[in-house]
């Protein structure tokens, strides 16, 4: 699951429309739910670099780039 770097996220919501799974909500700050398929598209679109690939645990999704 993609991780939100809380101190960077400004709550602009621009990640919300990007997620193909509808897994991101943003109400003051972005939150990613369990529907995240780790496609990592949102990482590219975040203007402040507040979304990170979660390397802890069992990250098994596909990678871009």
């Amino acid at each position, binding site marked *: 699951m993609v991780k939100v770097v809380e101190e960077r996220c400004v709550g*602009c919501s621009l990640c919300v*429309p990007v997620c193909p799974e509808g897994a991101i909500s943003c109400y*003051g700050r972005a939150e990613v739910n369990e529907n995240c398929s780790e496609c990592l598209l949102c990482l*590219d*679109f975040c203007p402040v670099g507040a979304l990170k690939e979660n390397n802890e645990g069992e990250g098994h999704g596909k990678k871009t*780039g």
Partner: protein
Amino acid sequence: MAKKQVEVLIIGSGIAGMCAGAYLSHEGYKVLVVEALPRIGGHCSTIEYNGIKCTTGVVGPGLGGPLEELFQHVGAEFNVRECGIPHYLINGKVVELPAKGGLRALLSAATDDEDEIEGVVRAFARAMNWAPPPETITMKEWLLQFAKTKSVLDLFQTMAAATAIVGIDQISAKGFFLFLKQHRGFRDWGVCPEGSIALPSSLAKVIERHEGKIWTNSPAIHILSEDGKVTGAIVRRGGKELEVKASVVISNCGPGRTVALAGKENFGKGYVEALGRLTPARAIGIHIKSEVPLLDYDHLLVVGARRVNAIFQLTSVCPELAPPGTHYLVAGADPVSSLNPIEAREEIDLCLQDLREILPAFESHAEVLMTGIYHGDWPAMFSIAGQAMPQRTPIVNLYAVGDGFISEPGMTAMAGAAQSGIAAAKDAATRLKHA
């Protein structure tokens, strides 16, 4: 490391960077624009959600002024549809702004005190037509000489916040009047039928027509300089780094980021401190989808609400922005508190309370698509009106452009950002010609 040579490198594809790029391309210089994100335009862009072309910030550009002039100059299509007459919501009454005597009409809705209305109208006329008030007092201080009713102060607060993203206690009285003169009371603006991204896209076509390039997903990671003069930048593209050599670098990626990319030590302490003193403009945008129209007009300026200062029913002007039968609105708000993440939710709640009260069909027919807060590293503007820094940086041939670097008094927001890009480009063109 692979190398590439251009005459002008532009970092960031916001409207300022794209204006600069189009101007210099049109002058015949080889331009490369590098953008970190997959999409050009920054705050002047479009993101599709639920079939709706949502804005990433800019609701609509002003008509006329430096932006439209540049489009004409470089031969870019300026596809903007003009908006209808502004309406104001004051003390529960909707006032359509008349063609003449607008201020008196608005004040009459705000107060019953004829002496107060007369005092403000006369002082206003003097400030506009004779002597502008001093730079050293705020607009609020100026107003308090003539106004005593809270609704009157709130009216001016809405004018400032909805159009210039600034509070009357932040903007100088002189700056406020300069701004009003430039913008003619928020009458001349429009909406792009294809979404705000149409504007940077149209400039991108000019750049490409002149054999320039625009690279998305390509962040600059260092701005290079030698002996105090810029030489180019290292850009990451497709997982690889490459050195782009350039005679001129124009940075449209924000003041803090520009300094970080070029190295703080290359700017001098004074410049970095001055950048740190800029007051960023913060704003909230609530994006709304509705099955029924929520307003009977294109836009409503809201006076005296908790947070919301303007509501734009963009599909009234451009139905193309949403699927047939769907209405798209953006409510703009001005956060009062300092925005830490916990208060951000409170700020949004206050906006939603306002919307439920102002728009009768909001609760039953509307859906909130997105709640965007613009602050921190992604502010509505990097500087409020009247505080901006010059475009020339301490590094020779490195320019900084965008809404933190507006040099023409009275310019702000998108028109101001465009002005900064055009001014830097004209200066750069002169220097390149004599190089």
